[in-house]
């Protein structure tokens, strides 16, 4: 990566930066935060406003409990540590970070046996999970239905308010010198004769740089095409029901054991597995549905009814609670359900950081730190002291899709 001064700049135009991050969702915000903190000059380009895309459509989960041993779990554990560090640095309040823990409950004996086996498997990979017997479930969650056979308590699960978290990370990045341009949509790259990136074209303007991070989330596929390094990112629709404001009635993130199999599933059809949790705002959030219907965002009352039924099954008091709002969004998924993080071998200087599916909030800081380490490693003039991730990021490499294509 060439120093900024070598690039030249447009008179009156953007002065140029070490890296342009495309996308102001949670992942772009985390990239901007870690990169600017590491001393890189950062420009963040957001098509609408910070956190207005998929970041604003989820519950803000930072989940360890739903992950099997493997690269995603490693990234999740690393990210969790970074979220707690960020809360120390920026305050838990501005992020609305809560160390609430997760409670996974089974609704049948067979599901309980599967859940126990899953938790045992996770135990060897750094996941803290404790079996909860049927008669102890209501010590954890007093309003749970009385007839559930048991569950597993996962104290490591966290929650943030995702849009606040993204805005707070971006505000911190600004303090470290990052520039943020909202309402600017990326249209393409400008590359030199040697193929190296010279500038990003966006919103009719030119942003000189030698490195670009594609953190466009669900739109990461489209953006990657515009940047000359296509990666396969597709939308998977989800609905979340929001109740009337309540006092604290649900302590943990509570979900049914079949959530895990649905998250990992390849089924294109509608899947619903209930997730219930409270928020600091007072509302209770009820997820989660998954279906592949492109970018169709119309309401499906069938999905609402299924989620409501399942939520009332776990928490009977919810029958008398009003549904106030439904929000829906599109999780960005890659065909193998792993995010795509790392350098694009086709376009030197282009890095991808997208495709986190429903786990973007949880995986964002790890992704931002990983990308920053890669950027710093590429920048010979920036010997940035930055701990590389405590694991091998190779499974996330964009090159895996090129190999498949070959």
């Amino acid at each position, binding site marked *: 990566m060439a120093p900024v001064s070598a690039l030249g700049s447009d008179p009156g135009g953007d002065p140029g930066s070490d890296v342009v991050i495309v996308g102001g969702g949670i992942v772009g915000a985390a990239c901007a935060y870690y990169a600017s903190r590491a001393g890189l000059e950062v420009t963040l380009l957001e098509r609408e406003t910070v956190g207005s895309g998929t970041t604003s459509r989820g519950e803000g989960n930072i989940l360890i409990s739903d992950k099997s041993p493997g690269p995603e779990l490693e990234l999740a554990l690393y990210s969790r540590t970074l979220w707690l560090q960020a809360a120390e640095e920026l305050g838990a309040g501005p992020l609305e970070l809560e160390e609430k823990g997760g409670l996974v409950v089974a609704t049948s004996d067979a599901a309980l046996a599967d859940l126990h086996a899953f938790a045992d498997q996770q135990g060897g990979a750094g996941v803290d999970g404790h079996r909860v017997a049927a008669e102890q479930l209501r010590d954890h969650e007093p309003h749970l239905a009385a007839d559930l056979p048991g569950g597993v308590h996962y104290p490591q699960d966290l929650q943030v308010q995702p849009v606040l978290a993204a805005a707070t990370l971006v505000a911190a990045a600004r303090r470290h010198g990052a520039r943020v341009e909202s309402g600017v949509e990326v249209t393409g790259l400008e590359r030199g004769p040697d193929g190296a990136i010279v500038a990003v074209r966006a919103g009719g303007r030119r942003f000189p740089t030698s490195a670009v991070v594609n953190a466009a989330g669900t739109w990461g596929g489209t953006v990657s095409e515009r940047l000359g390094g296509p990666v396969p990112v597709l939308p998977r629709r989800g609905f979340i029901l929001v109740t*009337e404001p309540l006092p604290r009635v*649900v302590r943990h993130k509570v979900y049914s054991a079949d959530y895990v199999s649905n998250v990992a599933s390849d089924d294109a059809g509608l899947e619903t597995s209930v997730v219930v949790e409270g928020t600091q705002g007072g509302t209770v959030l009820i997820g989660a549905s998954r279906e592949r219907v492109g970018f169709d965002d119309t309401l499906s009352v069938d999905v609402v009814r299924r989620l409501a039924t399942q939520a009332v099954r776990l928490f009977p008091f919810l029958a008398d609670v009003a549904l106030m709002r439904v929000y829906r969004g599109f999780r960005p998924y890659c065909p193998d359900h792993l995010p795509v993080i790392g350098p694009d071998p086709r376009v030197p200087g282009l890095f991808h950081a997208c495709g986190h599916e429903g786990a973007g909030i949880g995986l964002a800081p790890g992704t931002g730190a990983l990308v920053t380490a890669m950027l710093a490693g590429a920048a010979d003039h920036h010997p940035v002291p930055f701990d590389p991730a405590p694991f091998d990021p190779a499974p996330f490499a964009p090159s895996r899709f090129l190999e498949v294509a070959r």
Partner: protein
Amino acid sequence: MTDPQTFGFDGTEIPFVPGQSVGAALTAAGIRSWRSTRVAQRPRGLFCGIGICFDCLVVADDRPNQRACLLPARPGLQVRTQEGTGHDDLTV
């Protein structure tokens, strides 16, 4: 002329004419607020009067969050001032 019909409100009897809402009858009785907000504990009562704003919430026959402006008054109904979310009993 028959005796006026009444419903209960925080221990008093409020007269009403059949067809009136709880909010209208309370207003006619000179009562302007019957809810305390959940953050600042501020008094609230009728605002939009047509079911849009949800400011006039009451607990009626133990069901919280009933819009007084829409809730028909009827004899024997027990209405209470609503504190906060109206669901304090559910707090864990």
